[in-house]
C-alpha cells in the first residue's frame, strides 16, 4: 500500500469517488490492526522457517502442503505470543536468525514439546504394533495360502502322466497330426523328435490309438503339421494375447475373461509344479496346440501356468492315464467342450470357460473371444484377434470405458475446466463424479471433495457434462475424476 503504482485511470469521477470510499473503508479496517500483530508476522515466519530448515534442510524445495497442521498449531502459538509481546511492550521486529521470542513463553514451549514427544511416543508404539500385526498376518496368510493352494494344482500337473503323453505325442506325430506340446516340455521333446523320427514311424501303430484317432478327427483337416515346439509356443502366445486384450475395467463379460484367464490364480502353484523352462510340465494335447498351425512364430513368453492349463486338458483327453485324478469328471467334460471347439461344432462361450476354470483350478470363466480367435487361427481365418464375438450383430466393440477412454474424454474438456479458475479465481484439485451412459454421454455430474457445493465445483461439473466418451454395450458407468485448476 505504500509503493507507488500505476493505478487504473478513472474516466468517471463517480468511479474515483467510489474507489475513495472503498479505499477509506479498507484503511479504516486495516488501522485496527495492531503494530505488534503486524510485526509479529515476521517473527512467526522466521521461527517457522527455522523449523522448516531444521526438519527438511533448506525448505526451498520442500512441498508446501506437508506442514499445515503444524502451521496451525504454531500460528495459534504465535498469536498468543503476539499478545504477550503486546503486553510486554517488546520490540516485535525479531532478527531472523535469533530467537528471543522463545524466551518469552518458554513454559508453553516446554509443555508443547512434552505433548509432542508423548504424541510421538504413542504414535510410534501404535505403529510398531501395527507393523507386527501386519507381519504376522502376512506370514500367516502366505503360508496359509500355500498350504491351501498347493495340493490341488499339484494334482493337475502330476508328473507320472508325462510318459503317456509323450507316447501320445509320438503317436500323433506318426499319424501326421500336429504335435501338441507345451513350450516347457518342448525343450525336451523337440530334440528327441528330431532324432527319432524314424522310430516314431515305427511306433505309430502303438500307443494310445483312441487318443490319436480323436486328434486326427479334430485336426486332420488343418494345415500340415508344424514343428512341435513352434506349435506349442505359438499357442501359448495366443493364449497370452487373448488374456490381455479385453482388459476392460467394468464390462461384465471382459472382466470375467480377464479374471478367468489371468495367470494370477494359478501362479503360486506353478513354480513348484512346473518350473519354467525346465521341461518338467506334462506334455499336452490342448487347445493351444490345436490352433498352432496358423499361429504366429514361436515365442518365448509361454508362461509356466500355461503348462498347467494344458495339463488339465491332457488329463481329459488321455482319460485312462488320468484315471486316478479326482478331477476326472470335470476333465472329461472339458475335453468334450474343447473338442467341440476344435472342430468348430460348438463354439459356445461356456466351452472355454470350463476349460479355463478346470485348468486354472478357478471357477471364473473365460469369454468367447479367445475361442473365436483360436477358431479363426485354426481355420486360417483372420490373423488378428477380434475384440468381441464375431457373431454379435453391430453391437459396440467396447463393453466399458478404460482408463485411456476416460482420460481422453476428460482431456477434451480440461481447457474449459481451467476456465472455471478464471471465472472464480480458486485453484486446486476439483474432484467430480460423473455418470456416463453406454451411449458415451454424460448424464450426471457432481463435484465432490472440498469443492462440493462451491461455484468452482459447479462450474467444473457443468463443463464435464459436455464431455464425450466412446459408446459401449452395457450398463452406465460412474467415473471419478480430478481436475487440477492452476493459477
Amino acid at each position, binding site marked *: 500500500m505504500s509503493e507507488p503504482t500505476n493505478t487504473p485511470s478513472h474516466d468517471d469521477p463517480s468511479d474515483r469517488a467510489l*474507489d475513495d470510499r472503498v479505499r*477509506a473503508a479498507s484503511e479504516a479496517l486495516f488501522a485496527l490492526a495492531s503494530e505488534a500483530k503486524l510485526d509479529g*508476522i515476521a517473527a512467526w515466519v522466521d521461527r517457522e522457517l527455522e523449523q522448516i530448515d531444521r526438519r527438511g534442510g533448506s525448505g526451498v524445495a520442500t512441498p*508446501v502442503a506437508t506442514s499445515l497442521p503444524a502451521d496451525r498449531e504454531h500460528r495459534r502459538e504465535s498469536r498468543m505470543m503476539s499478545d504477550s509481546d503486546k503486553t510486554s511492550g517488546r520490540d516485535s521486529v525479531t532478527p531472523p536468525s535469533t530467537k528471543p521470542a522463545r524466551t518469552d513463553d518458554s513454559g508453553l514451549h516446554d509443555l508443547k514439546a512434552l505433548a509432542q514427544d508423548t504424541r510421538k511416543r504413542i504414535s510410534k508404539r501404535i505403529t510398531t504394533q501395527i507393523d507386527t500385526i501386519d507381519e504376522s498376518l502376512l506370514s500367516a496368510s502366505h503360508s496359509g495360502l500355500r498350504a491351501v493352494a498347493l495340493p490341488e494344482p499339484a494334482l493337475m500337473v502330476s508328473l507320472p502322466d508325462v510318459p503317456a503323453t509323450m507316447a501320445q505325442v509320438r503317436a500323433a506325430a506318426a499319424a501326421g497330426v500336429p504335435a501338441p506340446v507345451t513350450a516347457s516340455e518342448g525343450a525336451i521333446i523337440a530334440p528327441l523328435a528330431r532324432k527319432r523320427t524314424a522310430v516314431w514311424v515305427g511306433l505309430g501303430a502303438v500307443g494310445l490309438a483312441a487318443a490319436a484317432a480323436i486328434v486326427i478327427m479334430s485336426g486332420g483337416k488343418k494345415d500340415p503339421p508344424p514343428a512341435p515346439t513352434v506349435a506349442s509356443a505359438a499357442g501359448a502366445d495366443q493364449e497370452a494375447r487373448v488374456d490381455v486384450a479385453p482388459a476392460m475395467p467394468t464390462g461384465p463379460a471382459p472382466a470375467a475373461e480377464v479374471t478367468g484367464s489371468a495367470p494370477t490364480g494359478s501362479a503360486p502353484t506353478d513354480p513348484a509344479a512346473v518350473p519354467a523352462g525346465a521341461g518338467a510340465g506334462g506334455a499336452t494335447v490342448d487347445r493351444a496346440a490345436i490352433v498352432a498351425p496358423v499361429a504366429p512364430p514361436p515365442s518365448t513368453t509361454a508362461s509356466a501356468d500355461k503348462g498347467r492349463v494344458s495339463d488339465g486338458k491332457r488329463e481329459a483327453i488321455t482319460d485312462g492315464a488320468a484315471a486316478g485324478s479326482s478331477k476326472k469328471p470335470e476333465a472329461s467334460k472339458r475335453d468334450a467342450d474343447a473338442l467341440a471347439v476344435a472342430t468348430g461344432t460348438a463354439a459356445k462361450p461356456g466351452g472355454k470357460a470350463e476349460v479355463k476354470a478346470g485348468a486354472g483350478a478357478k471357477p471364473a470363466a473365460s469369454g468367447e473371444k479367445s475361442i473365436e480367435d483360436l477358431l479363426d487361427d485354426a481355420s486360417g481365418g483372420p490373423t488378428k484377434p477380434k475384440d468381441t464375438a464375431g457373431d454379435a450383430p453391430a453391437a459396440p466393440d467396447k463393453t466399458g470405458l478404460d482408463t485411456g477412454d476416460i482420460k481422453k474424454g476428460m482431456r477434451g474438456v480440461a481447457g474449459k475446466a481451467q476456465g472455471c479458475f478464471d471465472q472464480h479465481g480458486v485453484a486446486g484439485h476439483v474432484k467430480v463424479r460423473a455418470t456416463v451412459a453406454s451411449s458415451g454421454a454424460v448424464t450426471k455430474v457432481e463435484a465432490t471433495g472440498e469443492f462440493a457445493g462451491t461455484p468452482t465445483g459447479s462450474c467444473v461439473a457443468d463443463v464435464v457434462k459436455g464431455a464425450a466418451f466412446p459408446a459401449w454395450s452395457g450398463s452406465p458407468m460412474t467415473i471419478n475424476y480430478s481436475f487440477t485448476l492452476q493459477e
Partner: protein
Amino acid sequence: MAEDDPDLLARARAGDRSAFGALVRRYQRRVYAAALNVTGNHADAEDVAQETFVRAYRGLAGFDGRADFFTWLYRIAVNTALNRLRSGRRTAALADAGAAEVAQLGGKPEDLGSPRYAPDEQAALTQEVRAVLAAVAELSATLRVTLVLATVEGLSHRQIAEILDIPEGTVAWRVNEARRLLRERLADANGKT
C-alpha cells in the same frame, strides 16, 4: 542501504534465511492488508499472511523470476486467502443448517464465502465504513478481489492480470462490474437509511 528484491531473493534461494526475513518484513504489511481485504477480519488475515510467507519460502525454487517478487507473493496471498474463505465457508455450512441447505441446493453458495467481519472490529468503525465494507462483502469473491487489488492496493490492470492470471480485459470488466454493483448496493443502503 536496503537491498533490492532480486539480491535478497538470490541470497534467500542460496539458503540465507535472514535475506528472506528481510523480504518478509518489507512486504508483511501489504500482504496482511491484501489478506484482510479478502478475508475481512484480522485473525484470518494474520493466518493468511503467515501462511503466504511460508508458502513463498517453500516455493522459492519454483519462482522463475519472470514476474516481480511482489506480484508472485501477492498471487500466493490472494489464493491463500480465497482458500481460507472456502474452508471457512465449509465450516459455516456445517455449523449453519440453513447455509448448508443453500449450499446443497446450489442456491448462491458464493454468498457463504463473504468476508467474516468480527463484531468487535465492526463496532469500532463508522457507519459509512461499515456500509461500504458490507457492500464490498456482498460482491462475489472474484469481483471483490479484483476491485480490492485495483482500488485499495492501487495495482495496474496488468499487475492484477498477472496476479490473478487472467486477461487484462477481464480485469477491466470485473472492476467495472464490481463498481456498478457496489454503487447499486450503496445506493440501496443509503435509501434504506
